[in-house]
């Protein structure tokens, strides 16, 4: 059937319809600020510590290998002190006073790496912090120990006992 000339021209000139994007825009305007507030800009991490326990007795009697030597790291306000069980030598790393007093973490890193090479079977290190040492120093030290192959950190703060004289 033939189409009237006037109608035919109307059909051919019709443009394709554009999708209505306004609802999507509304959704985005709500969702994006919400996600921006929840976005993590700084990544936090966690470091685990173990609490010191009283020295346990007993154990297996048929042990062939000797237990690994206990390593103690003392944190003082003016130095680090590393001591290995059964040896008299104490590694002392005093604070660096060149520019302004600061702990020598580089030397500590090297010393701990060396201790790990000498005591490969030992995975634990006992940390004894002075009460006046800052939390930042403690955590940097724990981090250096863990990074050098001592994943088990035994936190052992010094205990002060007071006695009353009668």
């Amino acid at each position: 059937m033939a189409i009237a000339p006037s109608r035919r021209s109307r059909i051919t000139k019709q443009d394709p319809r554009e999708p209505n994007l306004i609802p999507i825009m509304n959704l985005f305007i709500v969702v994006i600020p919400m996600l921006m507030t929840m976005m993590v800009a700084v990544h936090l991490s966690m470091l685990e510590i173990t609490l010191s326990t009283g020295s346990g007795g007993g154990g297996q009697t048929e042990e062939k290998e000797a237990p690994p030597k206990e390593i103690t790291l003392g944190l003082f306000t003016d130095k680090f002190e590393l001591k290995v069980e059964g040896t008299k030598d104490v590694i002392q790393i005093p604070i660096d006073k060149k520019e302004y007093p600061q702990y020598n973490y580089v030397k500590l890193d090297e010393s701990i790496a060396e201790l790990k090479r000498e005591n490969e079977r030992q995975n634990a290190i006992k940390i004894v912090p002075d009460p006046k040492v800052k939390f930042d120093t403690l955590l940097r030290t724990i981090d250096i120990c863990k990074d050098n192959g001592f994943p088990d950190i035994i936190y052992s703060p010094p205990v002060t006992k007071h006695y009353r004289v009668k």
Partner: protein
Amino acid sequence: MIRRTNVSVNRGRGGPFKRNPEKRKMKELNITSLIDILTILLVFMIKNVSMDATSRMIPQGMEMPTTITREKLVESGQAVVVKIYPNKILYGRENIMVGTLKEFVKDEEIRNTLVNYLKMEADQISKTVNSEGANNIPCLLIQADKTLDCKYISYFIRTSARVGFANIYFSTIHSENKEEVLNL
């Protein structure tokens, strides 16, 4: 016969026909490119978003230490968060004010309050069961300011150990740069 059109014309004083500017059809704004950008932004943000806000966000006004190593909570562990500022101690996700550090060390009542809170929370966590049927383990997550003296941290750890928290974690800012930790 006069033919009607949509175009308004000005025939006031004769001369050429002029289009009336008021009746000109408005051009629609093309927002397709904007939608493209927003879609990319949306995908990027969904990828980076974290739902566990408490353990992932730095407490306001706290300077935290930086470390390179990172560990996860023990399997089936649930963290109880304690924030230690130089001037106050906040407990739990609701940031309940416990008191100042000096009060905490000197005042036994404040210490007992915190011990009770910790005990209650540890008991509640121990009673809950995870998806594999095992009991959850209470863990203590300490978020402390880096300028604090270790004596406060030690004191705090001793208090929480008395309650039975065997798994204790320190919260830090993660960095990939070891030189930052070594103070270089």
